[in-house]
């Protein structure tokens, strides 16, 4: 075996190693993230969140609440998506990435509102920021998506928080 072949084999081994790391670690991280998101959504069901513009006039303390997240896909999924692009069709791997990013941004909006002692968020808007790979036209760049969710948080005196509900029975 000459030096070139050995070099090729090492290169292939490194690529395969990265692919497998992506496959396993990526899958574990993604599942954990989705589980955390589901838990949060369950826990925050009491919070009135909507993208309706109208705020009831009884609302108190209106203020902006914002949530950001930048999230990237794993190497294995990027690889699969690149192959999939040859034949076209639905790119499921990117779909889940986008959904996760949006849910995470919304989660942060709700968390920020709760932190400020508010119980409702109205007029939620979701935007995409151009950071990293997305939109920069760089094929080799990091495939990532940045989501910025914003809304108007307020205190609705007629809506009780679950801790208050618990106290009242």
């Amino acid at each position: 075996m000459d030096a070139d072949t050995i070099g090729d084999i090492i290169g292939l081994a490194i690529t395969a190693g990265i692919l497998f790391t992506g496959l396993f670690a990526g899958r574990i991280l993604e599942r954990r993230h989705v589980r955390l998101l589901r838990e949060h959504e369950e826990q925050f069901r009491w919070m009135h969140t909507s993208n309706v513009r109208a705020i009831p006039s009884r609302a108190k303390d209106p203020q902006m609440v914002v949530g950001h997240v930048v999230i990237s896909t794993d190497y294995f999924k990027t690889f699969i998506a690149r192959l999939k692009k040859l034949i076209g069709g639905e790119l499921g791997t990117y779909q889940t990435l986008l959904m996760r990013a949006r849910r995470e941004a919304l989660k942060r909006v709700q968390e920020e509102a709760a932190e400020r002692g508010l119980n409702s968020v109205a007029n939620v808007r979701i935007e995409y920021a151009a950071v990293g790979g997305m939109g920069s036209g760089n094929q080799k760049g990091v495939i990532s998506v940045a989501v910025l969710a914003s809304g108007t948080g307020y205190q609705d005196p007629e809506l009780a928080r679950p801790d208050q509900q618990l106290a009242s029975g």
Partner: protein
Amino acid sequence: MICVNTETVPGHAITQNLGIVQGNTVRAKHVGRDIAAGLKNIVGGELKGYTELLTQSRRQATERMLAQAEQLGANAVVNVRFSTSSITQGAAELYAYGTAVVVEPE
């Protein structure tokens, strides 16, 4: 200063419209963050460095917008929107804009 992304402030009446106020910031991520993001891209997940960058940019743009509103004598900014544009590879602009108004409690 009240800052909301709805057209009105609940419980308040808009008495004066002072026009559009805006704030922006263009930021680049440094090379170290790029490398860290590249590594993170193997396993996927949140790129905390970029999230932080975005948070800082948003805060700065909002601050500049509010400073402008204050200069105009406003006490609230309504209908705030954020938008971004990538001006060049590796740098992004975050732009916040809204309408400066004077509100009075009803």
